């Protein structure tokens, strides 16, 4: 059966959820072969096999951590040449897209980014994309070469499908020309203990109406009561109230959770672009005319400093 390369996104062998979604989507097209670069393949293999990886190609080299992106392209190209897959899937992270793009040039193939769904088609995999701030849905195909497709988080529910997960070492030679951008230092982000924004089932976001960094704990308390991730609008991030890594919108993350709660966010196009594919949308805003109310399944016109704490208390009570 045709093989599909899946690029594994992981932190020291802890496989991130979008990779499990990729494995699930890959099985619609062929047999997933996972490519694991860096330390931790021994740890990752069980998870990868459980989700359908027939093979795990593993390579570890110091260059992956010492230089930006290009050494990983060398490795993925080596995997491509070893396997001759029918498609290459990567997560739609900044790095995933960059690796995919460079691989596409090298292997003479078209690339599609930010797919939100993937199915097998008569002329190769068909990708669904959400474009123009999610106001249109398109169906696209790669017409030349081996399709390279990056897929957004939350595009599929990971399914267990135990497979052999046979580990093979992948021989990689990192070219000198791939050692151009040195990673001089790396500061890991401190964990908040909350779910990853793009992977979370529930996201609670605050905007201009939160009116100051000192008030964001109101948003965090609601998020924690629901086990949710915390997001912020561009206005809140630009004002310095919350980190940019939490920004939801066109220039931040796009999220597609089961439930999105927007507090004190007017709903400018910039923000809608990042959240309007959420399944259920709820908003709390003082201004009854705010455009966010055009999107909601349920909206409360009111002061978020009254409504949000009351909601948090009610959630805690109901959850016991």
């Amino acid at each position, binding site marked *: 059966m045709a093989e599909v390369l899946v690029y594994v996104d992981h932190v020291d062998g802890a496989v991130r959820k979008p990779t499990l979604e990729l494995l699930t989507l890959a099985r619609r097209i062929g047999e997933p072969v996972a490519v694991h670069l860096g330390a931790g393949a021994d740890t990752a293999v069980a998870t990868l096999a459980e989700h359908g990886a027939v093979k795990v190609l593993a390579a570890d080299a110091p260059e992956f951590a010492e230089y930006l*992106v290009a050494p990983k392209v060398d490795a993925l190209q080596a995997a491509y040449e070893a396997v001759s897959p029918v498609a290459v899937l990567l997560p739609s992270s900044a790095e995933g897209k960059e690796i995919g793009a460079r691989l596409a040039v090298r292997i003479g193939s078209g690339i599609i980014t930010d797919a939100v769904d993937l199915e097998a088609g008569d002329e190769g995999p068909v990708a669904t994309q959400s474009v123009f701030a999610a106001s*249109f849905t398109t169906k696209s195909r790669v017409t030349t070469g081996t399709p390279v497709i990056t897929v957004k988080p939350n595009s599929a529910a990971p399914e267990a499908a135990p497979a052999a997960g046979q580990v093979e070492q992948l021989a990689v030679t990192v070219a000198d020309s791939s050692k151009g951008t040195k990673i001089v230092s790396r500061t890991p982000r401190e964990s908040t203990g909350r779910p990853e924004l793009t992977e979370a089932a529930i996201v609670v976001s605050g905007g201009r109406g939160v009116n100051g960094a000192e008030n964001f704990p109101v948003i965090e308390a609601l998020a924690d009561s629901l086990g949710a991730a915390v997001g912020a609008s561009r206005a809140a991030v630009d004002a310095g109230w919350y980190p940019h890594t939490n920004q939801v919108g066109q*220039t931040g993350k796009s999220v597609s959770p089961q439930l999105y709660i927007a507090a004190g966010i007017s709903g400018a196009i910039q923000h809608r672009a990042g959240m309007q594919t959420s399944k259920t949308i709820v908003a709390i805003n003082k201004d009854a005319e705010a455009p966010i109310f055009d999107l909601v399944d349920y909206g409360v016109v009111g002061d978020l400093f009254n409504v949000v704490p009351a909601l*948090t208390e009610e959630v805690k009570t109901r959850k016991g």
Partner: protein
Amino acid sequence: MSLRIVVCVKYVPDATGDRHFAEDLTVDRDDVDGLLSELDEYAVEQALQIKEAADDAEVTVLTVGPEDANDALRKALSMGADKGIHVEDDDLHGTDALGTSLVLAKAVEKAGFDLVVCGMASTDGTMGVLPALLAERLNVPQVTQLSEVAVDGGKVTGRRDGDTASEQLEASLPAVVSVTDQSGEARYPSFKGIMAAKKKPVESWELDDLDIDADEVGLEGAWTAVDGAAERPARTAGTIVTDEGEGGKQLAEFLAGQKFI
């Protein structure tokens, strides 16, 4: 020797307009006003700051696009860029990201460069792959997604803030850089800048000037195809209540009904 900076910019349909597709499923550029992609303003700004910090530097702004894309160049020139290059050719209609990167790479090489500066993504296609594609094609270091950037002593340094870590990067010139919207607010063109821009030189290049065949680009030359585009159905109107003391409870009731609590 002068530091040669080339900024790649894109002319895009206004994101606040009613964007849609033309019959051939390319982006309709006729019915919506176009402008310099907002995210490229950050690239122009950082290029100008690098120039200001250097002894001797020149900023060339480069675009590939239809006739109106000249507006994007003029905006960048009025911000302070020194000259423009407009690659315009009827055969370019429908070119995908890979094809665009080929045209930009050839144009950057023809112009001569020490540093290429790009925005993090366009506001229409939003792929964010162009800088990496350019680095690959030009075979120079890729120093991308920077929230801080500086050039000194033939080296470019910068900070890349990722999801799991923040990285300090360094590469020798020549290199391709991309900057995020966190890199610093772009300046507004001054009246003087706008007037000066009218006199700044803009060269016009065609595919022939870059030794690119028509079949390498355009809709026919694209390695991807859009088979269909459908407007997303408007979300059905939801329930809106006004908080009169019970708003939090009412919301909890709704969430419980949807099994979120």
